[in-house]
C-alpha cells in the first residue's frame, strides 16, 4: 500500500508561491460539535456545526525582494487566499491529487525569530475564514 512522503508541496498565499521557503504545513479541518440529544435518545447525539479550521505553516523567513517577508507583511491583519497542493501544482489536479483552498485571516507574523547561528523561521497558525474547499477537478 502506498504512502505519501511530502517532498514537493505547493504553498500559495495570496497567489504567491512560497513553497521553497516553507518547511511544514498543516491544514486542520475542524467543526463545532453541536449536541442534539433529546428525550428518548439512548445516548448523546451530535451534528457538525460551523467549520472552524486553521492553516499552520513554518516559513524560512527571507527579506529578499518579492520573497517571504515582503509577501506576508502587507497581509498581516487582513485576509488572504491560500492554495495547498500536497503533491505540487506540477501534478494535475484530480481525485488522487487534491488541492485545498480557502481564505485565512493573517493574525500573526514573526519577521524575526531565532537565536545566534540559527535559521530565522516564522511559525504561524492562521484561522480559516469560511470553509476549506477540496478540489479534485
Amino acid at each position, binding site marked *: 500500500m502506498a504512502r505519501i512522503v511530502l517532498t514537493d508541496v505547493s504553498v*500559495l498565499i*495570496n*497567489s*504567491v*508561491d*512560497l513553497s521553497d521557503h516553507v518547511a511544514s504545513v498543516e491544514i486542520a479541518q475542524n467543526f463545532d460539535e453541536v449536541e442534539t440529544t433529546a428525550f428518548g435518545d439512548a445516548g448523546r447525539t451530535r451534528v457538525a456545526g460551523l467549520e472552524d479550521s486553521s492553516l499552520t505553516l513554518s516559513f524560512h523567513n527571507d527579506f529578499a*525582494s*518579492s*520573497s517571504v517577508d*515582503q*509577501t506576508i*507583511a*502587507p*497581509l498581516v491583519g*487582513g*485576509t*488572504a*487566499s491560500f492554495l495547498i497542493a500536497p503533491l505540487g501544482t506540477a501534478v494535475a489536479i484530480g481525485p488522487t491529487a487534491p488541492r485545498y483552498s480557502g*481564505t485565512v485571516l493573517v493574525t500573526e507574523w514573526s519577521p524575526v525569530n531565532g537565536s545566534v547561528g540559527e535559521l530565522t523561521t516564522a511559525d504561524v497558525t492562521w484561522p480559516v475564514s469560511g470553509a476549506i474547499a477540496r478540489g479534485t477537478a
Partner: protein
Amino acid sequence: MWTVTSDRTPWPLGATVKGSQLRGCNIDALVAGGHLAPAPTAKRRPVEPAPVPADEPKE
C-alpha cells in the same frame, strides 16, 4: 491592468493580467510585495486643432 513583476505568481514574469484574473487576491499586498505593478497605459496624443483656413486675398 497589472504587470507581473515577480516569478512567484501563477502568471509569467512580465505578463499583463486583468483585475478579473486577480479575483480573491489582495492586490494592494501583491503590489507592496513587489509581485505586481500597475500596467503602463498608452498615452493619447493631444488632438491638434484644425488649421484655420487663411482668408482668401481680396481682389
